[in-house]
């Protein structure tokens, strides 16, 4: 029944009075006196009186200022439709490939809400086994480099891709038609697809030739093998199979061919345990104290010009040959090395990093004599990561100068910066009609090119790689290109007339070339997805890749390795070595790559700039390394510190001059200086520009090979003062038991050697025995009880090589701010973990006692590192030790630092008021204070001030505010995540399933992390190892971090 009830607003409506009907349409019952009000004459004359005005003014000002006080609201905008694979708060991982033209790594990229925030090694990869270098770790920040180009450029102005493509194509076509020369200058290409694309390009433009250029070339190794083995190749090395390793001027642990792999092999051979009491012996003959030399059991410092002579002497001694050689400064030491080497036949490996084919031939001959080929050197698996041809580059420059190059495409390299005659290259470049750079920044070379077609960052790109025989990897984009950039592969294809995208092209290539021979998986898409998921594919047989035309053409067919003749013309090689050694005069210069920055491709990365050099501990600069004795003789300051100014010196070779501060480097022979490349950038970006000087300008050329050891330099006196920033300004252990060390011989006899129990005298009846007690027995405090987990960490000092990957990894994981050079100089670096490096001193307790040296004098002399060959170096990673009786915890007035139920020493940033008492009372000095607001502060114009750079921040870790203390948390966010994922499966976290950032990055597995309460955990095993000790045990802090003593494979006679 419909409702027929009706309600009236009033009696007027019921009666429908005319008045009501009249007003029914009006909104208001009575007419509003609007006209009357507005028409009021008085209104014109009204004035707000002073009091009213002030009231209103006061109100508005207050309201406005109150509104201004409000903290700005940053909006987080939720997804309208949730992407299938992204769950906010849950990280995704994608396998990819890192390749910077020199170093290869198969990586796993962590993304959060579609932002890549961390790059780590891919554990499935047999080359890196999950380890990574500092550069790989830092590469994720380079993605967010705001200096990267957002758009292609033509003649210095931004342009559209269509315009660029049209221009390039028309010019290339015109050039090809009239038979003009087209050249592609590229860094080593290991991508089979790019090679195919280049081949396609060459078909489209037949006058194309490819010139491969490695800034730090190792062509001599390949060419020496051509001479000795009949095949130009760089073999792969197996340090884990060598009982004796001899390095000659070769920094194989950080900057040589495949550093992560070689470091891992090296360390695995040197790991010791109850069941394995053997390790390799490593002798290093070199000039610069490299990171590799720092780890050697024995190191012989020689001038660079004599390294080749040493190789000949060793060969002569071993084989009884009489290749003419000349005397070196250390002939005795060298013949001792040769004598030792002789007893390691079949188990020895000699490696050499000098780009001189004559020396490399001698080294090959030594290796052949020692039976290294087939045992410790694998010639079946060939390393493709250095294909540069130094002579071809020189040839290209003269071609360009002659005006015979009409079009030049530069890919993955920066010759204006990295060629010794970079300026000449720039001049020659101006003579090229069409110069195209595929660089992603307008660097020194790109800015001199007419067109820049920016390549995408590897994290934005599809890619593939074939770093060595049978090893294939895929790379996938993990974020959309941040700017309008595209893969170099696409650019080349596009210009060749093929408009396929990178993914399809690579997939097609893999389908045709690789899938066809992988019958074990049914269906290409399954194969592709599986490979993409793993990131790599290892094939037992080599697949023929499209050959790349080179200038000059590569040697054609080569004889099989089995029937090579081991002896090349060693006499010719010998005389070449001797003559070049004899021609060395003046001061010799070693030009080297730093562990962090390498050749400088990622120089604009603040993480790498702030990473201290592992040996010098200096950040943010390159410098002239000199022997400290020599510096004292010249009156230069050898000390470092906030107000210790280094002397600036001019290093001159011919017309080239570099002006850099002189820094003391023990272990460097007198008359030799060393300068790192990678600095002196002028167009890399705001972080790198203007730092240091370009040492590439001093690189020499001999017989068509770049020479990184040059002579004939002179050094001026002090021309000024310069303040360098080092994270460690004191270099010796001062006779303290900080890094405990022993020799293999002693260790075999007693596995507690060098790690004798520390017993303190006590008169307490109920503790210890015989009046002696261990420090942890003498304790005022009650011990914590850890009922569930007890997180511990063990660091094997015998495995740690000091490379610093962990430091960058920690920085990335924990949002550690970059503070810049001036703050580092003030000892205010924020790194949560550091790697302490100590040199030995010629003064120690025994010497003092023997020579009757007084205490004051003794300590003064202990501060000075040894400058002779007795110099040894140790590395010790130090982070928060998570003491179980933590001195920091008791002193905080507000309980901002407390102990967790799982043994972690935790920092509550919110509660911290910043008294710094905890930092003062920390015996390990691992606490870091936020002296300023480091984020969003223009005084700290690094990634946290940059809208792009901020994208790298890990959302799981708080960005600390000004005035609070911070320190290593043992990656508590990872522990929580690991516990949660185990909980979801209703099980305990498996040992090894939770990894700290430092542990994950470590190429040598020096760091073990786990639950002490798990009786089978690796960390528990380390606890029971007799080499285990706690740092500063006598303070009674009972750290949860412990170290395993370092063991050097050397005779026990010299006590460390």
């Amino acid at each position, binding site marked *: 029944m419909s409702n027929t009830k009706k309600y009236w607003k009033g009696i007027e409506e019921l009666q429908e009075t005319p008045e009501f009907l009249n007003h029914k349409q009006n909104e208001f019952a009575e007419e509003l006196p609007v006209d009357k009000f507005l028409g009021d004459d008085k209104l014109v004359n009204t004035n707000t009186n002073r009091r009213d005005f002030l009231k209103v003014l006061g109100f508005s000002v207050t309201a406005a200022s109150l509104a201004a006080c409000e903290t700005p609201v940053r909006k987080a905008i939720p997804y309208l439709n949730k992407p299938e694979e992204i769950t906010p708060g849950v990280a995704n991982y994608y396998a990819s490939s890192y390749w910077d033209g020199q170093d290869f790594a198969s990586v796993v990229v962590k993304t959060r809400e579609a932002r890549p925030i961390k790059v780590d090694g891919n554990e499935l990869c047999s080359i890196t086994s999950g380890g990574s270098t500092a550069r790989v770790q830092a590469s994720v920040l380079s993605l967010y480099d705001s200096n990267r180009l957002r758009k292609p450029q033509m003649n210095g102005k931004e342009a559209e891709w269509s315009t660029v493509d049209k221009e390039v194509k028309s010019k290339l076509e015109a050039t090809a038609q009239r038979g003009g020369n087209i050249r592609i200058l590229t860094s080593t290409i290991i991508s089979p697809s790019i090679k195919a694309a280049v081949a396609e390009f060459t078909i489209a433009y037949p006058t194309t030739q490819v010139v491969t250029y490695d800034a730090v070339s190792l062509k001599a190794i390949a060419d020496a093998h051509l001479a000795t083995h009949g095949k130009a190749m760089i073999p792969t090395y197996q340090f884990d199979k060598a009982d004796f390793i001899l390095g000659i001027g070769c920094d194989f642990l950080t900057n040589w061919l495949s550093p992560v792999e070689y470091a891992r092999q090296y360390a695995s051979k040197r790991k010791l345990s109850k069941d394995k009491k053997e390790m390799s012996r490593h002798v290093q003959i070199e000039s610069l104290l490299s990171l590799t030399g720092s780890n050697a059991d024995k190191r012989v410092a020689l001038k660079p010009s004599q390294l080749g002579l040493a190789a000949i002497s060793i060969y002569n001694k071993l084989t009884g040959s009489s290749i003419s050689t000349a005397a070196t400064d250390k002939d005795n030491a060298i013949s001792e090395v040769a004598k030792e080497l002789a007893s390691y036949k079949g188990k020895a490996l000699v490696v050499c990093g000098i780009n001189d084919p004559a020396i490399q031939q001698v080294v090959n001959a030594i290796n052949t004599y020692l039976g290294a080929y087939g045992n410790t050197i694998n010639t079946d698996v060939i390393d493709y990561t250095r294909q540069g041809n130094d002579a071809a580059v020189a040839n290209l420059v003269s071609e360009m100068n002659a005006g015979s190059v009409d079009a030049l495409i530069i890919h993955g390299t920066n010759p204006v910066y990295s060629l010794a005659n970079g300026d000449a290259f720039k001049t020659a470049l101006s003579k090229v009609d069409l110069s195209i750079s595929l660089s992603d920044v307008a660097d020194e070379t790109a800015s001199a090119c007419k067109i820049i077609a920016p390549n995408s960052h590897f994290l934005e790109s599809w890619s593939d790689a074939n770093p060595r025989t049978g090893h294939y990897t895929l790379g996938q984009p993990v974020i959309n290109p941040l700017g309008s950039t595209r893969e170099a592969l696409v650019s080349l294809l596009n210009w060749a007339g093929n408009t396929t995208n990178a993914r399809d092209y690579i997939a097609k290539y893999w389908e045709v070339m690789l899938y066809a021979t992988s019958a074990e998986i049914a269906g290409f898409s399954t194969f592709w997805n599986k490979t993409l998921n793993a990131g790599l594919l290892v094939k037992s047989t080599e697949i023929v890749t499209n050959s790349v035309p080179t200038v000059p053409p590569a040697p054609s067919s080569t004889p099989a390795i089995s029937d090579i003749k081991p002896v090349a013309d060693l006499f010719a090689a010998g005389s070449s070595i001797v003559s070049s050694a004899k021609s060395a005069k003046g001061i010799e210069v070693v030009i080297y790559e730093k562990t962090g920055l390498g050749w400088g491709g990622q120089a604009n990365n603040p993480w790498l700039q702030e990473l201290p050099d592992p040996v010098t501990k200096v950040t943010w600069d390159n410098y002239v390394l000199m022997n400290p004795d020599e510096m004292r003789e010249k009156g230069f300051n050898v000390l470092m*510190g*906030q*107000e210790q100014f280094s002397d600036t010196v001019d290093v001159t070779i011919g017309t080239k001059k570099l002006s850099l501060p002189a820094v003391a480097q023990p272990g460097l022979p007198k008359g030799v200086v060393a300068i790192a490349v990678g600095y002196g950038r002028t167009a890399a970006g705001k972080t790198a520009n203007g730092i240091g000087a370009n040492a590439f300008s001093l690189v020499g050329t001999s017989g068509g090979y770049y020479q990184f050891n040059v002579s004939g330099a002179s050094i001026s006196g002090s021309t000024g003062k310069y303040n360098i920033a080092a994270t*460690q*300004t*004191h*270099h010796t252990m*001062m*006779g*303290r038991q*900080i890094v405990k060390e022993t020799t293999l011989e002693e260790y075999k006899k007693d596995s507690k050697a060098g790690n004798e129990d520390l017993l303190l005298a006590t008169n307490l009846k109920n503790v210890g025995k015989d009046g002696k007690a261990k420090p942890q027995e003498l304790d005022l405090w009650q011990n914590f009880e850890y009922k569930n987990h007890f997180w511990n960490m063990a660091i094997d000092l015998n495995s740690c090589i000091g490379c610093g990957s962990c430091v960058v990894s920690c920085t990335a994981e924990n949002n550690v701010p970059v503070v810049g050079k001036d*703050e580092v100089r*003030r*000892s*205010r*670096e924020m790194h949560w973990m*550091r790697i*302490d*490096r*100590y040199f030995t001193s010629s003064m120690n307790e025994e010497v003092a006692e023997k020579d009757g040296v007084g*205490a004051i004098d003794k*300590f*003064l002399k202990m501060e000075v590192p040894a400058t002779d060959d007795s110099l040894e170096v140790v590395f*010790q990673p*130090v982070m928060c030790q998570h003491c179980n009786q933590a*001195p920091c915890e*008791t*002193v905080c*007035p*507000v*309980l901002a630092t407390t102990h967790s139920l799982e043994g972690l020493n935790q920092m509550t940033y919110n*509660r*911290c*008021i*910043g*008294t*710094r*008492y905890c930092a*003062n*009372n920390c*015996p*390990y*000095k691992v*606490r*870091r*204070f*936020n*002296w*300023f*607001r480091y984020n969003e502060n223009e005084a700290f114009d690094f990634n946290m001030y940059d809208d792009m750079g901020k994208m790298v921040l890990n959302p799981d870790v708080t960005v600390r*505010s*000004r*005035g*609070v*203390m911070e320190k290593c948390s043992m990656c508590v966010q990872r522990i929580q995540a690991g516990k949660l994922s185990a909980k979801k499966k209703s099980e305990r976290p498996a040992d090894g399933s939770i990894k700290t950032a430092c542990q994950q990055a470590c190429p040598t597995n020096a760091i073990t992390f786990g639950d002490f309460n798990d009786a089978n955990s690796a960390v528990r095993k380390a606890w029971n190892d007799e080499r285990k000790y706690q740092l*500063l045990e*006598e*303070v*009674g*802090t009972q750290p949860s971090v412990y170290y395993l003593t370092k063991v050097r494979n050397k005779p026990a006679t010299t006590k460390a």
Partner: protein
Amino acid sequence: MSHQSASVREPLILGEKTYHQITEDIAKPIEGKANNLFKILFTISALLALWGVACFSYTIGTGIGVWGLNKTVGWAWDITNFVWWVGIGHAGTLISAILLLFRQRWRMSINRSAEAMTIFAVICAALFPVMHMGRVWLAYWVLPLPNQFGSLWVNFNSPLLWDVFAISTYFTVSLVFWYTGLIPDFATIRDRQVKPKMKRIYSILSFGWSGSAKQWSRFEEVSLVLAGLSTPLVLSVHTIVSMDFATSVIPGWHTTIFPPYFVAGAVFSGFAMVLTLLIIMRKVLHLEDYITIAHVESMNKIIIITGSIVGVAYLTELFVSWYSGVEYEQYAFLNRATGPYWWSYWSMMTCNVITPQLFWFKKIRKSLMATFIISIFVNIGMWFERFVIIVTSLHRDYLPSSWTMFHPTFIDIGIFLGTIGIFFTLFLLFSRTFPVIALNELKTILKSTSENPKPPHH
């Protein structure tokens, strides 16, 4: 009370004084006009104080990074200044409380200004533990206040928390003690005032004191009770300050000798500062008849004693570090004397150990000029003592990899000078508005210890 002093004691009030004359002399600075010397001193002090305020503001605005501290040396000038000022603050209470209990009558001319100095020194001192916090706006978190942050409480294990209690108690008791003593004197000033406004102010300040026998009796009782309360505080405050260091694990800090050594050092520096101030004040305010050479000499004797205790403590520290056999400890002390901060150690040794020994000579002990110079030396020496303890222990502790140096910035220096400015500004204001000598108390010894007392005119 009014027995005659033995003639071997020197008179404590010089000249021919009557009760009225004492009142006249002491009320004069309050009632008269400021002289030029005062104006100059006040201007300089106030400017310094303003500069200090500016430096403090800059620190709060920018961050503790504007100081010279670093990852290894987390405290330097801040806590050095704190301990220095707290130490200076010790003389006042010692003079008023302990000397009162020991019935040392010479304290009567100096206790008022010594106590004022204590209050101002503690104000300056308290600035530092607050200002050195990274997040000073959260300083109230060190107080055990009920809060809504959850079950948050302070850490009673932390010596810094003990400091909070020690300093605040000390400040409160000192202030009450000082003010109690001032009441009768304020009443005297009130009674002499002719300007109604001033009369009103002083009558409020004097809490309606009428000078009745009952009031005097209560006054004496309260003084004695407060003296009893203050006496342990003299020992406790610096003991607790010393525990900031003594309970830590840093070689050079972790020392059981610290509590007595710090207390002796504090009295030492406090007396030195009292001397520095009084020698100027007696000149500027014409109080030579009340603050006599005899007073100065008595204080100099305390300086010899405490200076010697401090000297013995220094040597004991050296001995114990060697005898302990702990290499870190041994190096810490060797480094103090011969390391990069040797100059601070030897400044400390010279100023604190050698110079006070000159007071064994009576001529020097009684010379105002010599006393003034030595008192400045002691002030400097005691500042260096704290600097040596804090900075040279921290800058090279356990792991040589973290060894570094501390270099002060302009802000560090500015803040220190600023607190000196604040201190003197307050003291100068005090000298013009408060009776700088406890005049009513002093009158009780007029007959007994004056050089030439005149009978009052009745």
